Every structure is written in C-alpha cells, then in structure tokens.
C-alpha cells in the first residue's frame, strides 16, 4: 500500500479525562498529531506524560473524551466497542512489553490466533502463520510453547502474531523493556526491517533513547501534550 497524501492517523484536540469530579485526572489536554503511513514513530516521555493514553487511543483500545481521532479517514471516536475490535482485527497489530503470549500454546497457535478470529480456513492459517514465523526467524521453533522460548524469541513470536494479518499499523508498547541490550537491538532491527520491507507503519513507545534512535520520527510527550517532534531520516540504522 502506497503512502497516501492524507496521514493514516490524525488526532485533533484529543483530550482524555479519567474519573469524575474533584478526583478527575486529565491525562491528555488536547493533542494534535499526524502520522504518515509507512512512518516509524517512537513515542517518548516521562510517566504520566500521556504517551500510554495516546497509544491506547491510537490502538483503538480506548476512546478520547473529546476531540477527533481519524484512522484512515474513519472517525474512531464515533465507533462502538465491537466496531473498534473489528478495526483492530483488520488493521492493527500489537506488541507488548510483557510479550503476552498464551501460555501452554505453541508459537504457531499463538501466531494463528488473529487469523482464527478472522475466520480463515485451517490451511491458510497454517501457511500464513508459518510465513510470519519465518519472517521473524523462528520457523524451526513453531511447536515450542512460550515457556520453552527465551525472552527475545517470545517477543519475536509476538511480533509474528502482530504482523500475520498484514496490518497497516504495528503498535509496540516498550517492546524491548524486558530484554537485554543485545536482544533489544535484534528486535529493533526486526521492526525496522518490517517497516521498510512490508511498509508497516510502526508506533513504538519507549523510554530508551537508544531504541528511539531506530525510529524516523520521535514524538516527545509532556504533561498531556505533544512537547516536540523530531524528524531524522533513519540515520542510525546501519
């Protein structure tokens, strides 16, 4: 899919309030943001700056309290719970800090899961899941359960699961937070590679500048607002 003229993600004056009355907490105070298709974005900022809230909204897991969120031109803030679930199923892939694979379930079956919800027939599921495992270099490990895999391998299975549906956007929430620096670089290279070859838009939350350096765009959050946006065209990747 070629990058279109209008950004794939548009936030306009997005606010988010948790709680009510005097204990209410305003996590986002009017965020404006455009993300172009095919970009590799790192989201940074101290805790409580609103980066996680923004990611939840971008991941269609949460809805803004006010403002507009357009994903591929669709007003997500107007969608219901199930419509957002279908949006996630079709266009989004998730990678979490804690891997979040199903226990006692083989790598292959974990990767298959999104396809199962999509209703793909068995053979197509198998093939797509194996292809995804191949992309992350774990084809040989397809029948291993998470307990039998290292942290780095588990995260790669999680990435395979996120990309198996050929999503438009991959959301990664501190994907290297639980890994040592060597594994972290491997994961980052994998993400960079996917971004480049499969044209997947990558949104990644991180607080490590080393990891953020792999991104093309770095968005800094502070106190519920976008503080600044750095653009540097993939200088670090060797």
């Amino acid at each position, binding site marked *: 899919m070629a990058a279109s003229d209008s950004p794939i993600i548009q936030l306009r004056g997005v606010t988010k309030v948790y709680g009510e009355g005097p204990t209410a907490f305003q996590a986002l105070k009017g965020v404006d943001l455009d993300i172009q298709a095919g970009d590799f974005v790192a989201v940074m900022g101290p805790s409580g700056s609103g980066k996680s809230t923004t990611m*939840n909204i971008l*991941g269609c*897991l*949460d809805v803004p309290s006010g403002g507009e969120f357009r994903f591929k031109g669709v007003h997500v803030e107007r969608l219901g*719970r*199930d419509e957002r*679930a*279908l949006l*996630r*199923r*079709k266009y*989004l892939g*998730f990678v*979490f800090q804690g891997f*979040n*694979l*199903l*226990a*006692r*379930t083989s790598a292959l*079956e974990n990767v298959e*899961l*999104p396809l*199962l*919800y*999509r*209703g793909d027939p068995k053979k197509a599921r198998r093939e797509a899941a194996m292809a995804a495992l191949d992309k992350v270099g774990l084809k040989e490990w397809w029948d291993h359960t998470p307990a039998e895999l290292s942290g780095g391998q588990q995260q790669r299975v999680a990435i395979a*699961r996120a990309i198996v549906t050929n999503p438009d956007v991959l959301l990664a929430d501190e994907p290297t937070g639980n890994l040592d620096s060597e594994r972290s670089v491997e994961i980052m290279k994998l993400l960079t590679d996917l971004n480049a070859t499969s044209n997947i838009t990558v949104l990644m939350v991180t607080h490590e500048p080393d990891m953020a350096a792999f991104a093309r765009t770095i968005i800094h959050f502070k106190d519920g607002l976008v503080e600044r946006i750095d653009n540097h065209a993939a200088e670090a990747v060797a």
Partner: protein
Amino acid sequence: MFGTTFILAIRSIFRHKLRSFLTTLGIIIGVAAVVAMVTLGKATTKAAQQQVASLGTNVLQIRPGQGFGRGGGGPRPPDFKEADVEAIGRQVAGVNAVAPQAQSTATVIYQGANWSTTINGTTNAFFQVQPWPLVSGRTFNRAEEQAGKAVCIIGNTIRTNLFRGGEAVGERLRVNGVSCDVIGILSTRGQGGFGDQDDVIIMPIKQVQRRFTGNRDIRLMLVGVDPVYDGAQVQASIQQVLRERRQITGGKEDDFNIFDTAQISATLTGITTLLTQIVTAVAAISLVVGGIGIMNIMLVSVTERTREIGIRLAIGAVASEVLMQFLMEAVVLSCLGGLVGLLVAQLVVIGLAPLMQVEFLFEPRINMIAFLVSALIGVVFGYFPARRAASLNPIDALRHE
C-alpha cells in the same frame, strides 16, 4: 464464529486437563448418580414385577395365619386339609383350579453328585393356576397323582447341577433315600427376590406328605381365578367358605390370609417407584451442585485468565466472541462431563445389577435427559462467568497481573 469459538474452547480445555477434569467432576458424579439410580430403580421395579407375574396373574395365595409373620402369641393356626381344597373348587364360582402345596427340603443324589433343594408337593392344578411350562417331559398322570407315586418334575437348577444340563427325563434320582423317576423339566424362571425359583423339585403331594412331611397338611393353596369374574368377589367367597370350615364366627378375625398377586404387584411397584424417585431427587441435587462447581471454576478461571482475555480483545476478538468462547467452554465441559457420567453410570449398573439380582437395562430416555440437563447446566452456569469475561476492558485486562 461458532466454529472458531468451538476450536478455541476445545484447545483451552485440553490445554488445562486437570482444571477441566476438576471442573467436570461434579457433573460426572451427578449424571452418573442420577442415571445409575434411575436405571437400577427401573430394573428393580421390573424384576419385582416379573417375580410377581411369574406367580401368575389372577392367582390368590392362601396361607394359614395372619400376614406374612407366623410369630406372635397363641396357638399356631392349623394348616389346610384336602377337603378345604375341594370345597373351594366346588363351592366358589369363578375358581378355575386350586393347587395345594406341601413343602419339605431334601438332599437329592444322582450318580454320586448331591444337591440340597426344596421339595414341592402339589397336583397338576399347579400348572393350571400359573404359567410355568415344561421344557421337556410331561406333568403327572392321573394314576401318579392319585397314588402319590415317586415321580418328579425338576427345576432348571437341579438339571444344571446334577445332570450338567444333559437329558434328565427318564433318569432316576434319590430324594432323601427315595428312588424317584424324572418325568419333566421346568422352564427357567430365574433369580429373584424370592430366591432361586428354579432350585425346586415338584412331586405329587401325596408322595410328599407320606414320605417327607409325614402328615396330610397343606401349607399353601394357589387359587386360579377366572378373569371374567370379579377378583374381589371371588376372594370374599373363598374367605366365607374358609371361615365356615374353620368355624370362625362373629367378629373373630380370620386365622388365614388371602394374597392377591395383582395387589402385591401394585404394592411392590409403588414402593420401588417411590424409592427410585427419592434417590433420584438426591442424585439430581448433586447434579445441580456439579453445575455450581462449574460456575465457580469458570469464575475463578475468568479472573485467572484476565490477561489472556485482554490479549484476545486486543488482537481483535469481539466481546461476543469472548462470551461465546467461555460459554462454549462451559457447555463443552459439562457435555463431556455428562458423557463420562453416562459411561460411569453404565459401568455402575453393570457392576451392581448382578449384586442386586436384577438384569442390566439400558434406559435411553433417562440417558438422554441426563445428557441434555448437563448441557443445560453448562449454558446456565457458564453464562454468568462468560458475560463477565466479555465485559472486561482490554486495557485493564492487559495490565492485570
């Protein structure tokens, strides 16, 4: 969606075998208990009915004394005499036949093998009163009956034990030292609440009275009633005749009792049915408890699997799919439990039926009902936990530790 959630449910169940087994244990026990109880109850009722039916329908049993027990104070009421038998046959309308009985026990010897059994002295009327056909040979002839000759008709147990199932008619037995020709073999009646009915030798009553009991007393009369006549009427007439003959006057109670087999049948059926219902009710409670067990484990499971649910929701599962998966898990579990329970029930029945001296029955109806109830339990008790799982917020669920 149905197929997907079914696959997911099956995977989840077999991935956690111990949890699944513990969840279904209550259902297994409940279904097994209900089905086994109902099946055994029905078998017992049927056996009791068969027992009574084997005594013949429209048969009255007349014994001296009140009720079954012979105990209590006072002199023992006298047994009947041959004249009583004749009087009933002659004076009461609607009586087809009256068979007197005199009983004794004896040791039977044939070619060095011996067997202890019951000797039943009667007349050919015995075979008119009740349906008990011979498989070979014949009943007594007139001369044998009147002279009380040493001939005998043997039950199947005697044939099995003394003749090893071979031909017995024409052979000669020694019964308490008396030489006796075998003239007939009775068909099998089988085991029952009254003991092995085939463990018996039938001889002319005069022979039994002369050689075994040593008197002319008759312990029991079997009266065949013509079905055209009103049974109660016939019974009342017999009572009248016997009171006269035994000189019981005024308000004095009878010193004999008349049992109607139809009555016994109804009473026995009533008792066994009631017992079956009580035991089934208790078993049904255990089935409901089993359902609550499923709900408990499913609720715990929802909490324990919160993160898993979060993953599924994030990946793009719709709430109704999560609901369906959990509901499906509960239903599949309870159905599996139901199936295993049915299997256990059949094993229990197969194991217990011989001990209870009833035959193995397969009751399709109760099996079907029990299975449907277990499925229903899955739906009912699975719904609440499933709804809870489906209503989880994906963000909170993912953050759950």
